[in-house]
């Protein structure tokens, strides 16, 4: 469904991605884990089109979209929950959600809004509040709900658990599993490798701009190297 091949990305003189390839199949949760600065976010930003690669390609359903503008990729069913949530803080919760559906001209949004409010009841209570007045966890839910309003086929999630209390982290991961169960393919970037490997089917491990290990998530959890480097054991 989604495939990237030999991606090279530079930030000025910094070589951030060095030939990264990965694949996400229909219906999977795939996770991309690794230390800070390994290139996980850059990989997601290149997939969503915010960053242009210097070499390599991004394919959706076998079609090369490397040169397509970020905004047009949303129309293909790619939706991103960005790092740091990036909600529109001086717009209301409702307006944030409507912007999520920006690409879907016409049509009735109420059904999808209800779907989001069912998944995140707290957003329904806060629908008239400005995004900036929400707590960190609520903002994360808003960012996820906003992305779901685009009716994505593939959801790209960048560090959804970052900065959240443990109880909320648990809740967020349950919601991720539920979204996947309801039919959305997910590529999940996480520093919380433990949780990410539990929810994912397959995993890729990144180090300094390269993918160093990949495989079945459950298998990787048992690997000594992974345990030592990423699971704190």
């Amino acid at each position: 469904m989604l495939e990237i091949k030999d991606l090279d990305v530079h930030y000025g003189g910094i070589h951030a991605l060095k030939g990264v390839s990965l694949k996400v199949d229909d219906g999977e949760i795939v996770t991309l884990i690794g230390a800070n600065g390994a290139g996980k976010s850059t990989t997601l930003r290149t997939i969503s089109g915010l960053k242009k690669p210097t070499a390599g390609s991004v394919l959706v359903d076998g079609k090369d979209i490397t040169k397509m503008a970020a905004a047009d990729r949303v129309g293909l069913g790619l939706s991103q929950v960005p790092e740091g949530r990036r909600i529109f803080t001086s717009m209301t919760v409702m307006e944030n959600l409507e912007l999520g559906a920006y690409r879907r001209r016409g049509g009735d949004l109420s059904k999808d809004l209800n779907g989001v409010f069912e998944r995140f009841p707290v957003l329904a209570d806060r629908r008239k509040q400005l995004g900036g007045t929400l707590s960190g966890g609520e903002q994360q839910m808003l960012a996820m709900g906003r992305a779901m309003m685009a009716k994505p086929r593939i959801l790209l999630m960048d560090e959804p658990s970052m900065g959240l209390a443990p109880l909320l982290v648990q809740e967020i991961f349950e919601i991720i599993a539920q979204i996947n169960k309801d039919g959305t393919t997910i590529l999940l970037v996480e520093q919380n490798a433990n949780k990410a490997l539990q929810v994912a089917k397959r995993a890729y491990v990144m180090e300094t701009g390269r993918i160093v290990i990949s495989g079945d998530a459950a298998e990787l959890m048992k690997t000594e190297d992974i345990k030592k480097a990423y699971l704190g054991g």
Partner: protein
Amino acid sequence: MEVFQQLINGLSLGSIYALIALGYTMVYGIIQLINFAHGDVLMVGAFVGWFSMTTLHMNVFAALVTAMAACAMLGVIIERVAYKPLRNSTRIAALITAIGVSLFLEYVMMYFVGANPKAYPDLTGFMAGSFTIHGVIIKNIQLVIIGISVLLMIILQFIVQRTRVGKAMRAVSQDADAARLMGINVDNTISITFAIGSALAGAAGVMWGLYYISINPLMGLMPGLKAFVAAVFGGIGLIPGALLGAYAVGFIETIAKGVGLSTYSDAVVFLVLILILIIKPAGLLGKNTKEKV
């Protein structure tokens, strides 16, 4: 009564400044550029209105709409040709380009119409009239200017707050990358912002001509500068700030004239601006952030 006389004068002058300041602040809000050519867009609008009324014999309102449409197109062209290629360069490069565009518009217009002032046609009918309440003289043209300005501000407010395009504009001005992830075409949204801001400047140009009669290719400088001051005054990037700042500048200017400081009215405006910015560096409504001018 003198106070009320200055109040009505300040209200009509402030309305014109408000239309100009809105364009400044919208463009700044979306691409953090001080568009120094904005006053010259007003000048072009004034000339398009003048040409429509004299050569094409249009009525005032048709001329106003024509000037707004012409300026909207001009604004989009300026953005696409001059500013878009510089979007990722330094802000000082974009600023210098804006000054270049300003000079270009002034002297191209001068090439076509000459440097001598042109006169707007005499007002006719209702707009030529005036009336007196308790010694305060109110010209009908002042009411027309205030009325049209307020109407345009209401339309703008509706567009920005309620429409799909307005929501896209607000989203881009807050976070362009996040807007891209929503599927918003950032380039088109910036173009629309320039179109709307320039159309407002075009309307202001025609009203300036109706009010002050005389227009010339360098006329955009002072109103442009004052509207810029007004936008900074209120807090640049904020629409309510631009309105507040514009009426404040209008009132300060007319009051300065009213108390016999006609020669120094511009100096008074800038003096008050300096004082306000010393006390509130981000403007009256602005929040202090490191990104402001």
